[in-house]
């Protein structure tokens, strides 16, 4: 399938070297953005009037939550693409993104807990955002578990694609239902991002860290997809050349 233009890279054989060149680019970009983000977060942004230094946790909590949510949608997008164009690479990308997305969901929950303790006095509150992130983490775990229990990789691709698409339709509904449930039971609770006045530096720090998370996710997914390609194409001639 040696097509031209964009679809040329939908073949694993031609994507493998391209991904290899992109991994260090995004990796270093992620490192540079992280340094910049941490500098803003710890050195530039002033101490919060109400929360003291504890609020600095949001520089990882919020970007991690964004990234977890967004990565799931990207997985759903690749899954849809794998159905529409029947491209193997799309399914491999979906597979490669899942562990990193799950990692960010976990970090979001963990840092949320350690932000909640000094702020709300408890590690866990059934806040709408935290609860939906918890369910999102379960969706990720389900996706990876389904992948792990299916022997045949092509079957696993398609089964996981169906699950990811059903899940992505459900994510907004889950979020909406949890939000509703939350307001019914506790009234409006303090939300992490709805701090009274979000200072501009705070927003800037969060955005830079968000971009760092983006670059990191891309780099990690590309690196992982290279391994997946090698696993899947172990019998193809071109992978043989790599070990000769």
């Amino acid at each position, binding site marked *: 399938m040696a097509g031209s233009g964009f679809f040329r890279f939908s073949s694993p054989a031609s994507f493998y070297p391209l991904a290899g060149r992109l991994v260090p680019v995004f990796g270093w970009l992620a490192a540079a953005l992280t340094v910049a983000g941490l500098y803003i977060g710890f050195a530039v942004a002033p101490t919060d009037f109400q929360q*003291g230094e504890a609020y600095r946790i949001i520089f990882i909590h919020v970007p991690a939550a964004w990234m977890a949510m967004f990565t799931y949608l990207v997985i759903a997008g690749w899954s849809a693409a794998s159905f529409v164009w029947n491209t193997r690479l799309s399914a491999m990308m979906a597979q490669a993104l899942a562990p990193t997305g799950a990692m960010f969901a976990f*970090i979001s929950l963990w840092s949320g807990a350690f932000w909640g303790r000094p702020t709300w006095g408890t590690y866990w509150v059934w806040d709408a955002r935290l609860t939906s992130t918890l369910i999102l983490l379960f969706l990720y775990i389900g996706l990876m578990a389904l992948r792990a229990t299916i022997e045949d990789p092509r079957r696993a691709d398609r089964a996981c694609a169906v699950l990811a698409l059903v899940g992505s339709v459900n994510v907004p509904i889950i979020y909406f239902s949890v939000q509703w449930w939350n307001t019914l039971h506790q009234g409006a609770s303090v939300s992490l991002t709805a701090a009274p006045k979000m200072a501009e530096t705070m927003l800037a720090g969060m955005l830079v860290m968000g971009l760092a998370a983006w670059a990191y996710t891309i780099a990690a997914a590309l690196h992982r997809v290279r391994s997946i390609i090698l696993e899947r194409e172990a019998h193809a001639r071109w992978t043989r050349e790599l070990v000769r």
Partner: protein
Amino acid sequence: MIEWLSMGGYAYYVWMSYGALAIAIVAELFALAGRRRRALEQLAEHAQEDAFEEQAA
């Protein structure tokens, strides 16, 4: 420096969060490297198997 590390009394919470992120990322980097190493090993094994089969044929 010590004062900065103490995070105005919130050191435990702040560093538990950032520490977890650091550990998670390092763990993922190790997992990525391990997966690539295993993929290459598997590739070498398959190549050897096929070489045997070719010789046998």
